[in-house]
């Protein structure tokens, strides 16, 4: 039953299973295990990024395609939901059509870019997506009458998903059961479902063909697979998943702006999460996203302490300053591409006796 | 050993997952033409590329003039006096004939006397000296490719199917040129499918099949022994009859 749910793709490593279970249980009971607004924010962010990073892995890990437009699709989803809620009111109808419209637009964009530039080389696609995504981000911030520009959009969501809505009047296990909790579980379950869907996709015949195309496009073509078709489909699928993750973010934050969805920084974060977690293993997305966001949220405090401690040594203290954590991640990133391209998950699976 | 300029012993070459050379043993005596025969896919081109260092041998060793050259980089192998005329000719079509020749003279400016000799061997080199190499015909590109290989004196020239797809008149010109080249102390290792042409200029011969040398000896023995020809040529030429 459980194996079927995972589409037969089990973690295949004891330690990995334990880690994944820890993540799953922590996220499932986050409101009760780690009370407090900040930790709930972190948990929701982890859920959403697991979907986002896994959808990126569909491209990078399973299809061998580097795209820099993933945040564009993420943003399209978020803005779709945000604009619908903003224009046609905080009801479920607009929430649903906004989300669907975002996913559809993302799919069409991905189709256009894919058909246009996947025929040539991986490098070409990477460059085109980088250019298109940057232009899109600028464009969105220019269209301030619609998108709120750099300030973004603040909007209302259905009342049942806000802290103002009380489900039960008493606290349960010291936690207030309100709309925010409902919203969290909406994010959690939606993320879980999307993740399982992706797991199914990569373990389907389609997913196996994708990997064959990745490993030897020339040969796959010779056997008769239509390489461009497979790659474009993967791009579209990955874009739709990213858009849905964006919609979840829009619902959760009740705010959508360029900085939270479209920025190049987020794109780089996604890249780091996929590679450090492990390319071509969706479980890598889980570990990558979790570790990265935890580090982003909490490690910087630790580095602050280190910077404090070394403040007498001028250069060292600058190097370990909390703002410089990306420096160390960059180094870690390069090293992992060289030495363990299959990331944490790959290491764990290889270490299995 | 001194009379063998090149010795290939037990060489294996892998290209990706494919095991192309499976223990090639080949000797090229100094000062003559050695012809390498074999059907398509037998490993002739791979043998030349492995000698040139363009593929790495996974096993075995290659000695040139008694020095081990296995594992050296291609430019170093080239600088020891081996030139290479690849099957696709490797002409730089974006450059002129003159520029192609300038680059081929890697160690010094072009020796004008030698260039005169080459122009006599291959008249088109002179005629189209300033033309873009991309505008040359197939035969002219082949001449340019050979001319590049001999613009500086080399001890060994590896030539991969110089007559492929050429008109009979040009094949004859090419054969004459190679014969004249032979007179200048240059050793030639020639891959050829055209047995008629090969038999007229070859001194020694080796026949390849499935990544191994299956016969080697003196060319005359092979041309005079119909039964052996039948046996080996059946292998090497059937695809081209």
């Amino acid at each position: 039953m459980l194996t079927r749910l995972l589409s037969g793709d089990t973690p295949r490593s004891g330690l990995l299973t334990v880690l994944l279970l820890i993540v799953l249980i922590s996220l499932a009971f986050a409101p009760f295990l780690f009370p407090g607004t900040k930790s709930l924010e972190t948990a929701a962010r982890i859920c959403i990024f697991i979907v986002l990073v896994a959808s990126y892995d569909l491209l990078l890990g399973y299809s061998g395609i580097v795209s820099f437009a993933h945040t564009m699709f993420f943003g399209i989803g978020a803005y779709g939901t945000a604009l619908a809620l903003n224009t046609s009111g905080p009801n479920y109808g607009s929430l649903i059509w906004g989300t669907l419209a975002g996913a559809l637009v993302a799919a069409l964009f991905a189709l256009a870019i894919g058909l246009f530039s996947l025929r040539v080389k991986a490098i070409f696609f990477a460059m085109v997506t980088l250019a298109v995504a940057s232009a899109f981000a600028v464009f969105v911030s220019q269209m301030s009458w619609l998108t709120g520009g750099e300030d973004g959009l603040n909007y209302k969501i259905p009342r049942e998903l806000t802290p103002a809505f009380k489900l039960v009047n008493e606290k349960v296990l010291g936690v207030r059961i309100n709309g925010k909790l409902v919203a969290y579980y909406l994010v959690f379950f939606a993320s879980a479902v999307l993740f399982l869907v992706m797991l199914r996709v990569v373990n389907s015949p389609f997913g196996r063909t994708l990997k064959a195309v990745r490993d030897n496009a020339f040969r796959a073509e010779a056997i008769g697979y239509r390489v461009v078709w497979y790659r474009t489909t993967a791009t579209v699928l990955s874009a739709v998943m990213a858009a849905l993750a964006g919609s979840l973010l829009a619902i959760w934050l009740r705010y959508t702006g360029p900085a939270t969805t479209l920025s190049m920084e987020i794109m780089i974060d996604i890249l780091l999460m996929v590679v450090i977690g492990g390319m071509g293993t969706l479980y890598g997305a889980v570990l990558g996203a979790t570790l990265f966001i935890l580090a982003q949220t909490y490690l910087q405090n630790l580095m602050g302490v280190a910077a404090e401690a070394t403040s007498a040594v001028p250069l060292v203290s600058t190097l370990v300053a909390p703002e410089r954590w990306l420096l160390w991640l960059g180094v870690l990133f390069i090293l992992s591409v060289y030495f363990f391209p299959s990331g944490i998950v790959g290491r764990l699976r290889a270490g299995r006796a | 050993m001194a009379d063998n300029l090149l010795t290939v012993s037990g060489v294996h070459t892998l290209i990706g997952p494919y095991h192309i050379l499976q223990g090639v043993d080949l000797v090229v005596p100094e000062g003559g033409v050695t012809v390498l025969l074999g059907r398509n896919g037998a490993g002739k081109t791979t043998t030349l590329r492995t000698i040139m260092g363009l593929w790495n041998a996974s096993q075995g060793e290659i000695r040139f003039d008694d020095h081990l050259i296995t594992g050296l980089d291609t430019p170093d192998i080239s600088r020891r006096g081996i030139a290479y005329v690849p099957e696709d000719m490797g002409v730089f079509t974006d450059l002129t004939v003159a520029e192609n020749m300038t680059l081929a003279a890697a160690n010094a400016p072009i020796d004008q006397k030698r260039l005169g000799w080459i122009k006599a061997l291959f008249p088109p080199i002179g005629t189209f000296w300033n033309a873009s190499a991309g505008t040359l015909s197939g035969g002219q590109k082949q001449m340019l490719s050979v001319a590049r290989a001999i613009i500086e004196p080399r001890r060994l020239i590896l030539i991969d199917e110089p007559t492929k797809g050429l008109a009979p008149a040009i094949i004859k010109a090419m054969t004459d040129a190679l014969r004249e080249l032979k007179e200048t102390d240059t050793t030639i290792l020639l891959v050829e499918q055209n047995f008629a042409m090969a038999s007229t200029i070859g001194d020694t011969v080796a026949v390849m099949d499935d990544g191994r040398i299956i016969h080697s000896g003196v060319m005359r023995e092979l041309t005079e022994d119909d039964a052996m020809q039948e046996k080996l040529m059946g292998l090497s030429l059937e695809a081209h009859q």
Partner: protein
Amino acid sequence: MSETAIKPRIEKVPLREQFFQKLPVLLVPMLALLGLMAIGNPASWLTLTVAGLAMGMMIFIMASGLTVVFGLMDVINFGHGAFVAVGAFVGFTVLAWLAGWTASPSVMLNLAAVLIAILAAMVVTGLLGYAFERVIVMPVYGEHLKQILVTMGGLIVAQQMIYVVWGPDELHLSRPEAFQGSIVLGEAAIEKYRLVAVAIGLALFLAMRHILKNTKVGLLVRAGVENGEMVEALGYRIRRLFLIVFMTGSALAGLGGVMWGLYQETITAHMGSEIMVLVFIVVIIGGLGSVEGCFIGALLVGLLANYTAFLAPKVALISTIALMVAILMWRPQGIYPVVKAK
């Protein structure tokens, strides 16, 4: 063999085809003319055209190294923008040290200060290019996916190091006296600095063309772009050639960084990755590996960006994307597709 048997295949190219071969070169004046019609006012048009050419030249300087590196070794460096930023920061630092010279009314002192700044920037970025090639790029030759990832990682680290060395804030610097102000031509005001940028860019392009056409290194680069293996078989170490080209390209990016910085008078650690968007568009339009294509592409992008910034500022960047799409529909490999033997 008779001479007649081997006639060259140089036939007279039909006029129509000749037109299409020349068309890419004509695109630039065509776009300028289109701009004139759309803008209407010749004075504004002249100002914008000079601005566009200046921007194009600066992008060309930054992009040229990238495209040759790709042509020669099939390596695309996503961290190229780091050299632009580092160059700008080094240049600014030197100019700040030489504040006495830049503020002086003497043109010679101004020029000397800028030249020293450019030289310093190019030396530092050239050396950085050496380190980048050895440490970051060399281990991943031939693997495009890893190349993209690793050079991107290099960009992150380089940007962070800029923060470490120069602090987190953007730097401001006014241009030296001699490069400030404008020349008035009829009703059009043309900034002096833009003319300088056009001159430097043009000089560099001509120098590059000369080197590629008339020197042995240039011949080797062109031959290597087409067939690297054959260049090695002729006895040349293409890796060393590549390292030289990579360092030169990095130094040119550094030069572009200084020029861009002086143009904007403000620099940030992120400027490199912002400009890289334009650089990539230009390289794609020109045809990966082609210097001439890169030059034409840069001028087209520079002009178009300035015209649209005037006509419809909100779609400036989108318009360059549209240009890229249009060019690729016409020639899927860019204006001048590069011949590859393999």
